[in-house]
């Protein structure tokens, strides 16, 4: 059992696995929504430790992967403009747009900076009053409170040269879209722990009811993921569908009300394109009208974006769990972390990058 030593408590890991093996009587397909969980599953070989027939379908929960191509192209166009300091999280730097990535813009002389926290971007704006500082505000609900705070701060402190390019995505509408899809095979979900740390669990009860599907709020460490899987499987085998919390040390049922209040003040719900997946109604946040003056989309005129995806990249099918990364013909050949063709090969939370980093190099399936 070569992987178990990275579980921290090997004995507990073994007990959870034994319980899973004793529970499962037939095949099941579970989806982990969050890319951080995908990373843990592949890194620790959890999918390979599960009983035959229990499949982990990797969900679309990698913000780097699902940020729409149009938005990446817009970011590139803004970053290229003279006088702009364009700030982003590190993972976005290598995400391919239609022709380019932020790294290439930087190499051509664009002022692209990677920040650890969006507050660093506000600080840059304060220190460079003669420049326009734009922060690329992507992410799920976990990241939204941080990005919302920057706009609030910029307003309170009168920092007029700061703006946010917002492309937030939300988990519950994505679960709904996955369950509504005619190709859906998912029978139970691991919900993303830190999304629920912020938002709480209230939005998931109606999904459990509507689709009669078990949803278990789950953390990111190997033992957390194993426990989440174990709880979903117990429900499935018992014919139940409940909302359960396997990550109570970091998730309170009501979430973080202080953070929710700031998000509600700064952002408003909108339809959102998901890269590789398509439009999901009411699945995103953008700046609310009250903060429109901090919206980089409005501040920077960017005309004539014509998006073009790589013709060989099958990220859409990967993100919808229809194929595994190594089934893409470009995987590990034309597409590697050093020269990614698609976004899932960029971030460590992307399924293609995880398969690549941990050598899930099973021969590509001949089509």
């Amino acid at each position, binding site marked *: 059992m070569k992987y178990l030593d990275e579980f921290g408590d090997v004995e507990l890991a073994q007990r959870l696995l034994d319980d899973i093996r004793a529970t499962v009587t037939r095949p099941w397909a579970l989806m982990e929504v969050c890319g951080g969980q995908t990373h843990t599953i592949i*890194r620790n070989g959890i999918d390979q430790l599960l009983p035959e027939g229990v499949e982990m379908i990797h969900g679309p929960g990698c913000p780097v992967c699902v940020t729409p191509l149009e938005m990446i192209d817009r970011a590139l166009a803004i970053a290229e403009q003279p006088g702009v300091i364009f700030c982003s999280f*590190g993972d976005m730097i290598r995400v391919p747009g239609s022709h380019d990535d932020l790294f290439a813009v930087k190499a051509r002389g664009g002022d692209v900076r990677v920040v650890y926290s969006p507050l660093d971007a506000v600080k840059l704006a304060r220190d460079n009053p003669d420049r326009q500082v734009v922060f690329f505000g992507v992410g799920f609900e976990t990241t939204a409170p*941080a990005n919302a705070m920057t706009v609030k701060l910029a307003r309170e402190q009168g920092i007029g040269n700061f703006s946010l390019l917002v492309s937030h995505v939300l988990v519950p509408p994505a679960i709904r879209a996955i369950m509504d899809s005619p190709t859906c095979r998912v029978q139970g979900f691991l919900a993303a722990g830190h999304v629920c740390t912020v938002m709480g669990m209230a939005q998931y009860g109606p999904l459990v009811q509507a689709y009669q599907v078990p949803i278990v709020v789950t953390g990111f460490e190997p033992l957390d993921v194993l426990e989440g899987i174990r709880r979903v499987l117990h429900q499935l085998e018992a014919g139940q569908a409940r909302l359960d919390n396997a990550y109570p040390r970091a998730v309170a049922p009501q979430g973080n009300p202080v953070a929710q209040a700031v998000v509600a003040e700064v952002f408003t719900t909108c339809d959102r394109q998901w890269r590789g997946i398509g439009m999901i109604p009411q699945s995103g946040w953008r700046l609310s009208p009250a903060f429109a003056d901090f919206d980089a989309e409005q501040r920077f005129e960017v005309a004539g974006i014509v998006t073009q995806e790589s013709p060989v990249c099958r990220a859409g099918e990967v993100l919808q769990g229809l194929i595994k990364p190594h089934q893409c013909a470009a995987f*590990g050949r034309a597409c590697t*972390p050093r020269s990614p063709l698609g976004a899932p090969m960029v971030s460590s939370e992307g399924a293609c990058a995880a398969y690549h980093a941990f050598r899930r190099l099973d021969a590509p399936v001949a089509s």
Partner: protein
Amino acid sequence: MCLGVPGRVERVWDADGISMGEVDFGGVRKEVCLAYVPDVGVGAYVIVHVGFAITTLDEASALETLALFRSIGTLEAEFADPLAAADSPPPTPPLEATP
């Protein structure tokens, strides 16, 4: 980017009405916004995501997670120079299984 890392609050101050703190992540110290965890003080453990504490955590869980993250290199990856990290993605392993 979606990672949340636990750490111990070492110092707390007010920056223009915003609660800020210094948080120790197993040896690496970072300035963190504490506005979303209004009741924490020095000695509390918090989970930090992109420079913002999003919840508190008990000490034992925090230390366990930190030990795990240290042993598998997660802390180095999270706090590495971000541009250098973006510039040098992990090396490509050989494709042994390619037919």
